[in-house]
């Protein structure tokens, strides 16, 4: 099977999985979930990494890749930390009770 048809299957199944996973969420968690999912969408950092690794000595490409990686990590690290900050507030209440 070529990469393309394999990748299409992956796309299809990944989408279905995403639809199923989010089925029932209490409204309380919508904001943290949005923020967490947002952090995961920074997975595009893998593409940026690949780009940098493959660009060899091509300086413009290295720069593009590095900026891209920076944007992605801003998204990933910021996203996870901010989500954690929100969720910490819920769990703190829980344990104190």
């Amino acid at each position, binding site marked *: 099977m070529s990469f393309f048809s394999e990748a299409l299957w992956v796309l299809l199944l990944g989408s279905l999985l*995403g639809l199923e996973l989010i089925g029932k969420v209490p409204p*309380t968690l919508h904001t943290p979930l949005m923020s967490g*999912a*947002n952090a995961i*969408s920074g997975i*595009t950092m893998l593409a940026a990494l690949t780009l940098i*690794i*493959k660009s060899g000595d*091509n300086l413009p490409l290295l720069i593009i890749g590095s900026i891209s990686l920076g944007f992605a990590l801003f998204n990933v690290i910021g996203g996870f930390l901010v989500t954690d900050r929100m969720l910490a507030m819920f769990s703190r209440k829980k344990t104190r009770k």
Partner: protein
Amino acid sequence: MTFIAPVKFAIDLLAVLLLALGIKGLSKVRSAREANRLAAIAMILAAFGVLFNSQGTIGISLNSWIWIISGTLIGGFLGALTAKRVPMTAMPEIVALFNGCGGMSSLLVALGVALFPSVEGSDSSVGELVRNFSIFVSLFVGAITFSGSIVAMAKLQGWLSTPSWTQSKARHFFNILCAVLVLIGGIYLLIDGQNGLFLIVVASSLLGIGVTLPIGGADMPVVISLLNSYSGVAAAAAGFVVGSQLLIVAGAMVGAAGLILTQVMCDGMNRSLVSVLFGGALGSSSVTSGGGGGEYTNITSCSPEECALTLEAAEKVIIVPGYGLAVAQAQHTLREVTRVLENADIEVTYAIHPVAGRMPGHMNVLLAEADVPYEQLKEMDVINPEFPATDVVLVLGANDVVNPQAKNDETSPLYGMPVLDVQEARTVFVVKRGMSAGYSGIKNDLFDLQNTSMVFGDAKKVLGDLLLELKELGVGSKG
């Protein structure tokens, strides 16, 4: 070196598993925090997998390492700093900002591959047409995500207002023009893989601005959620560009999950996604369309002092927090008021409408930050039967979500929206800055009712005054 591919494969599988478990766990209060960490670990694993695989097969040059490390450090540091510094009330803006950057990242990858085709994806079996199409999607969606998110953030922060032309028909013309230009650029790109790149980026960015700019403040969270979904799509497209299945799975999951979340938000506001995106601000059209209009005839206003006297005599109080409370950042003052009431053995609960605050769940976060016990937050379906047995309802900066028109008046544009039945309570106090209409621009029949009194003023100031009055009355001071 034959073990490298299987190891990389195993790492990828594990990462996908953890990501899926992470998203799943984020949908339950008890497991949410661990789930978030799980997802973060999955990301680290995934990055490690790429580095490990590349080091083992083609090798990573020192030069590449330098650029990788500097990009990681700068982006990561700024991200961590932003996440630590930002106030909880600004959460929607910050999600928009992060999200836009994710879109920008996908865009840049596609741009890099398109400009320097020599560094094609790891799998050369990706045909040229497929590759160019993936680049097109990645550029298009990435640019829309970025420009749209930045506009959304600027509007929520109040840096940008809504220009009048965006409320006219001209905006449709503008957007269609941009869309056509994107298509032209796309066709050029599909033909030879380089031409049309910048046309696509510029036209897509303008399209993102043109679509987001007319949308009103209260609809913005829906747009952010939708853009969040887009950034997943952009990541999946980038996965096609560089030939990474892990990226495709993760992007697709986020894309699909984002769509569901967007739909849930729309349902809560009784709005269809189409009307959010193409209808412009609801207020501009519905006020003139008849139904739900009319003048107020029977407004009673009262001072915080009178409000305090009534609260003192109450046994059961329900607080209805809304957007106005978040804007006034009054959640901490509110918590102090409710503490006093609780000390006086008055039962206090909070009625949380599904779209209270600025995003679904945002109000819960804000109240949690102010130390309100999670158990006191009641969802709409749970709290609605309790209103008839309630002495005092305190509506803080909420408007449309407590409008009885949504139940009683079939001609009202709000008709059918789920609302809190606050009018069933014995006394209702509405804290509001003035008589201006709510977000929807619709008259609120609640304000005209016999048992409703208006307390005019900024939520934080009113609550502060209320706190003083309650203390003067000796409420809650034990002994």
